[in-house]
């Protein structure tokens, strides 16, 4: 069963206490949108949930695989988009079909053979989403997934997120723009 829970988590960064006593629990099919001003600690919260940052206090409990889409795309610039995504899919134990699925869901299937270095900002953002979809992980952590996306891509993002929740997945998204999906909100 996919689950993500944070208990009494506090985050201290750059000499500042960003948040403390934070509790959240997400069960299958549940999503949560984290909002807050720039520098409020949205990305730090996601990195804590991903296990990349150790919280100052509190515990993080995860059941299920994690997929993180952050500002850094983590795609090899000189590879084709398909090959760059396939590298991660293979590490996740997924095949080429999963990559094709992710590319189709984000509308990138037509540029699958284009080198990553030629992609635009919005296309990169969609490619990180394609990597998340292709990972087959239960827990999606999306950091500003809507930034730089056009209207059609926003719809694809909402559809992909709705599909993941319907399939029993868990989503924790940080964004300061609406994602076109009914989710609980947490303001930092």
């Amino acid at each position, binding site marked *: 069963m996919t689950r993500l829970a944070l208990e009494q988590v506090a985050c201290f960064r750059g000499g500042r206490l960003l948040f403390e006593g934070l509790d959240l629990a997400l069960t299958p099919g549940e999503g949560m949108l984290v909002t807050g001003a720039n520098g409020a600690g949205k990305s730090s919260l996601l990195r804590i949930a*991903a296990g*990349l*940052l150790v919280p100052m206090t509190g515990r993080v409990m995860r059941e299920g695989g994690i997929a993180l889409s*952050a500002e850094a795309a*983590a795609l*090899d610039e*000189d590879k084709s988009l398909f090959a760059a995504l396939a*590298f991660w899919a*293979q*590490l996740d134990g997924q095949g080429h079909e999963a990559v094709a699925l992710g590319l189709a869901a984000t509308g990138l299937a037509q540029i699958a053979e284009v080198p990553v270095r030629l992609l635009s900002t919005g296309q990169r953002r969609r490619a990180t989403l394609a990597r998340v979809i292709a990972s087959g992980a239960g827990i999606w952590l999306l950091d500003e997934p809507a930034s730089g996306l056009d209207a059609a891509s926003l719809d694809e993002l909402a559809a992909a997120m709705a599909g993941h929740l319907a399939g029993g997945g868990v989503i924790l998204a940080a964004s300061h723009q609406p994602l076109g999906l009914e989710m609980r909100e947490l303001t930092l």
Partner: protein
Amino acid sequence: MSPFARLVRRDLAHSFAHGGACLPLVFYLLVATLFPFAIGPDAALLAKIGSGALWTAALLAALLPVERLMRPDIASGVLDQLAIRGQSDESVAAAKLVAHWLSFGPPLMVATLPAAALLNLDGATLARLEIGLLIGTPGLAALGLAVAALTASLRGAGALIGLVMLPLAVPLLIFGASSGAGALKLLAATSLLFVAGAPFVAGAALRAGRS
């Protein structure tokens, strides 16, 4: 294919695709050519200092790829994504070490053949040098990897890399260039120490850099 093998293959393809693997080689040969120019065409003298000169050249060539070993993968989020997938920082560092040595050690040994001809080294000295490089370059690569991880988050680390790495590489230079009986064993011991320690030093540095 295991994640470790995939990482090695990715890094190896990366360093050869970008020509990053050729640069230290050309540099090594260039430094080797400088010695005859500086010392003059004294064949006996060149043959005498040749082994030490080539080890110095190898040490300097080992500095070149260090800045590109860790920094790009940290900046592009690749190391974060590997950590999320449960790959320990130590095993990632070990994979990078294997890939780095493969793109650095064997090519350097091949380049030593023309370099030895330039310095008029005889067959026995050349064989001794090649064995020394085979044993010593893994240690050099390990040192480069650890220094790369330690300096990855610093700005303007280029100059610092040399300052940190060269003093630590002195034992390799001493035992590699020496023709004493036990020198190769001591070289192997030093190299083994660096290879065994580097993944843990680099792993700890990567973890510290994340918080």
